[in-house]
């Protein structure tokens, strides 16, 4: 065997590499607890004390469990303590800890601490074992008759391999397939539509243009969201959530194509970040910037929602607004582009880019 592929544990060459010869295991140094019987006895008492406290704490645990009211809270060190849980943990935790401390103290102070050496054996098999193995392997192969009838193995392999196909196919119903038609009805669509009223996300009251002051931001939802329940409700809300802001029309840029999407500086944007989809919440009135709390992407609501900082790549979709007969804000249509985070099949050629008219 070449040294390159040696499996031996150490070669004579290794020994030559040692400029200082191995002096052998260092002398055993006696501990205090061995040298001085009094120290040893003290350690002994300490270990027994550790173990002896465990039943006391275990009983305390049971008493706490039944005797302390479970909803009792107390204020201490500026924190509201859930007393039942804290006391259970303190008694139980200390009991468990003491078992450990006792055992380790015993091992370190009282058990024989002379280190001993054990021989290692190579992980690999000896040549004899390898040959023996090959022999048995050949005997088995001969018994199986595969060298005369070669198709046995390959057909079995093929048969086993192909079984993966039905197994994988059974997973095809994990979820609906996001074909173009399915996407159009799900991730590329929200429940906003022409005439759907914009309602306040807190009290569900419809928003009136005249209620909004310059600089104000309102979290809003489509009024028809309330008709939905359960998963349908959550799915719809996760896409339709809206931010309505009123800015001074003279201090913002409104491109020609979006002139009639707003009413006197009242604009509506998707609340769902175009990065990975957090609901955006932090509004800086002065700069018209909206900051996403998740990864700090910053969007300029005074400039059609373009990204001014952070990892997001696309402008926040804007919802075209108009006023209905009673003066309430309503949508003109759904969003013109899919809201939320990117996906591969998303056609992102129509998103607003800085400078578009």
């Amino acid at each position, binding site marked *: 065997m070449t040294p*390159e*592929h040696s*499996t031996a544990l*150490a070669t004579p060459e290794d020994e030559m590499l040692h*400029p*200082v010869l*191995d*002096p*052998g*295991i260092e002398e055993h140094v006696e501990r205090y607890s061995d040298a001085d019987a009094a120290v040893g006895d003290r350690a002994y008492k300490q270990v027994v004390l550790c173990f002896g406290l465990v039943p006391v704490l275990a009983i305390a645990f049971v008493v706490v469990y039944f005797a302390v009211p*479970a909803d009792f809270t107390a204020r201490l060190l500026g924190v509201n303590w859930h007393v039942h849980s804290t006391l259970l*943990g*303190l008694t139980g935790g*200390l009991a*468990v*800890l*003491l078992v*450990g401390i006792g*055992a380790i103290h*015993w*091992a370190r102070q009282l*058990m024989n601490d002379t280190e*001993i*050496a054990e*021989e*290692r054996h190579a992980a690999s098999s000896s040549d004899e074992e390898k040959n023996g193995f090959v022999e048995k392997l050949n005997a088995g192969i001969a018994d199986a008759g595969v060298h005369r009838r070669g198709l046995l193995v390959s057909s079995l392999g093929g048969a086993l391999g192909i079984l993966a196909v039905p197994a994988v196919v059974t*997973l095809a119903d*994990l*979820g*609906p*397939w*996001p074909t173009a038609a399915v996407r159009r009805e*799900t991730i590329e669509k929200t429940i906003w539509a022409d005439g759907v009223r914009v309602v306040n996300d807190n009290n569900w009251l419809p928003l009136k243009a005249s209620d909004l002051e310059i600089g104000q931001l309102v*979290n809003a939802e489509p009024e028809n969201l309330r008709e939905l329940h359960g998963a349908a409700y*959550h799915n719809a*809300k*996760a896409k339709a*959530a809206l931010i309505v802001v009123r800015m001074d029309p003279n201090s913002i840029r409104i491109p020609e194509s979006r002139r009639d999407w707003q009413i006197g500086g009242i604009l509506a944007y998707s*609340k769902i970040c175009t990065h*990975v*989809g*957090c*609901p955006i*919440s932090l509004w800086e009135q002065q700069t018209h910037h909206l900051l996403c*709390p*998740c*990864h*700090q*992407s910053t969007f300029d609501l005074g400039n059609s929602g373009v*990204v001014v*900082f*952070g*990892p*997001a790549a*696309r402008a926040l979709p804007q919802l075209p607004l108009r006023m209905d007969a009673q003066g309430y804000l309503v949508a003109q249509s759904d969003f013109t582009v899919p809201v939320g*985070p990117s*996906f*591969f099949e998303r056609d*992102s*050629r129509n998103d607003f880019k800085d400078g578009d008219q």
Partner: protein
Amino acid sequence: MMAKPAATAEQAEVLETHAPAPAGPVKKLGGPAIWFDERIGLAKLGKASLRKVFPDHWSFLLGEIALYSFIVLLLTGLFLTIWFKPSMGEVEYHGSYQLMRGLAMSQAFESTLQISFDVRGGMLVRQIHHWAAILFMAAMTAHMLRVFFTGAFRKPRELNWLIGVGLLSLGMIAGMTGYSLPDDLLSGTGLRFTDGAIRAVPIVGTWVEFFIFDGEFPGDAIIARFYMAHILLLPAILLGLIAAHMALVVYHKHTQFPGPGRTEKNVVGYPLFPVYAAKAGGFFFIVFGVLILMGATMSINQVWLYGPYNPAQVTAGSQPDWYMGWVEGAVRIMPGWESHWGPTTWSWNVFVPFAILMGIFYTALGIWPFVESWLTGDKRPHHILDRPRNAPTRTALGVAGMTFYGLLWAGGGNDILATQFSLSLNSVTWFLRFAVFVGPVIAFLVTKRMCLSLQRADRERVLHGSESGILVRSQIGGYSEPHVPISVDEAFTLTQHRQYTPLEATPTEDEHGVKLKGPGTVSGLRAKLSAWYSGYDVAKPTAAQIAESHHHGDEDTPALPH
């Protein structure tokens, strides 16, 4: 100099087997022990393993902490499953937490509140479970660093290293699926991130998203599916991998640090029974006890303060558990790059810091043992650990990796850094965008220098002894500090390691112009990388140099004691 006599397992064995009647309280096996011996050969098993030797070092405890916190996770997790309802079905809350009465929420969230407020001990167990998850990941990470920096992953332990990388990545997924279960506002935000990250994967992303979430986000299936993964699939795989990991540790026997009497052919330490069993068993109770005390006194994941999940809300300053922090940081500092090619969107801003980064990270970890042995040409088995300074390039690469990880982790808290230190968020982010590339390079260079200086110091110490700290004034008025000799034990420890000669390129063609290939050949590139990897070591003193320096001994170069 003679090797000191040392008790070896062999001698101990001789005493045990050949003595006519065992001396000790147990005269012979009886009762249930015999019953089992007649069925499963208990005595054979016990004789082979009872006095198995385990070396002792504090850093060997890190893996134990990981193992024990996993056991705590199993125990506390089992308790939680008794009450937890993995359903997104909507209910109205009527439990004993006043502030949420009458609120609509999922059954998952409701049952989490129930465990916290209506099941006695439930709050405690939830908190222990979560702290154990955090400790599990922390201990695994620290354990992996120990293995890396000491070269314990080298032959024959590469497979155990690979298992470890699997455990680390699966542990992360187990934690992630775990904190998604309560369906509170924070876990929902985490799920939203997961959804966005999955759908950003080119070509298959949307399909994977629909298959995992059963359609759109959030849908009503994800909690039940994550629950299956969290309590069955992942723990089963983890358990299997951990069992294999342990079995291999036993088969290979533990590595040991260099020292007198420690050779590649032996393992020096304490016997399993009783010392190691008491220490390791006791340590389990210490880890468990500390986790219980943490669960008692340090609240974590107070879901009732966040409220039920609402896709239109987010808790400000929301942070994932620490082990997701580095991915979070990468996602935060990544510039907003996206390609719109035809009707498709390639979301590099999410795909690169999430899927690609994790892929590269775990792949790099996984292949390292093989890369290193390719660089050094070393195919020997190793049971004596490296002192990190003696593998300077590896150590420097490790510190560079830690720096990269740490900077990304800082990126995960860029908003907190900005507010705590009154910096602008933009400058923190821009700084990190460059620092993640520059920082590791600096860390590499500095670490490598430091390792080489330490090697030089070792060499000096062996040749000239250690400084005595005593100033001596000579007759002519000069001052000097005499050196005292170091012990032969230490001298051996400082010189026993192997130093590599970089591989030399072999000819690419033989004399007939036929291309040479295959094992044994070394390409020019490999030779260059090998020189970069192991060509800078400070040569350790040779036996001749040591003898020489002692021969010309003045006070400065004392002889080794004999």
